[in-house]
């Protein structure tokens, strides 16, 4: 908690956001990232995909990363891709937990990671039971 945001590869197009790990602030992350995506040449549909992926990631931090009071979202923009990192400093999880499934019976839950993987072009989870979860996901601009 409360660590300064690390900047290994600070670039000109880096936007960093921190929100409290509470449901009411997810909309802020969603809209800020949509505004970032708007600066690239994304279609409206792609921007909606990115919004949803970020929201799912934040929702998971809030619901599963116990002990983390903040969520850190960084956006790195290129002319041809948007890379978004969502991380918490809470109680993490085991890699096996990060599974995604399609629905074939009405069961509540378990759709977040599936949606993230479906909507983004590259998704990498760095999970650790103690250190919290670090998700890096990329959406490519398709011209």
């Amino acid at each position, binding site marked *: 908690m409360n660590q300064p945001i690390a900047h290994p590869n600070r670039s000109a197009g880096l936007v960093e956001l921190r929100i409290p790990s509470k*449901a*009411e602030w*997810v*909309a802020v992350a*969603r*809209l800020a990232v949509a505004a970032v995506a708007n600066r690239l040449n994304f279609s409206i*549909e792609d921007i*909606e995909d990115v*919004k*949803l992926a970020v*929201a*799912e990631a*934040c*929702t998971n931090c*809030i*619901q599963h990363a116990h002990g983390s009071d903040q969520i850190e979202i960084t956006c790195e923009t290129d002319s041809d891709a948007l890379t978004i990192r969502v991380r918490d400093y809470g109680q993490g999880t085991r890699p096996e937990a990060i599974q995604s499934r*399609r*629905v*074939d*019976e*009405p*069961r*509540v*839950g378990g*759709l*977040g990671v*599936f*949606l993230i993987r*479906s*909507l983004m072009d590259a998704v990498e989870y760095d999970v650790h039971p103690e250190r919290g979860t670090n998700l890096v996901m990329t959406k490519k601009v398709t011209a």
Partner: protein
Amino acid sequence: MDIKVNVREAQGDTYVVDLNGEIDVYTSPKVKDAIGDLIDKGHYNLVINLEKVRYIDSTGLGVLIGGLKRVREHGGTVNLVCTNPQIKKIFDITGLVKIFGIYDDEDAAMKALV
């Protein structure tokens, strides 16, 4: 960034839940409560109108799935009205199109119910 929920009685013993806004981890409890109230009162045939919903995430989907599960236990069902292509896409890629009846207008959703 909020949700408006409106519940209307329709023909037969069916109820329509109109949703207007965005359904996410913050707003979905309000939707869940509205649907839960109807079911608690014994109404098991519902149309949920998503025409004015601009955004839904997995928490919102979870509320809809949860509602469907509960009414099915009583032989009821939940039909959805949905025209937004982005939201339709979400039902599509999650496979929920195969679980919910999804209709382009309320009339059709209603007819399929009764």
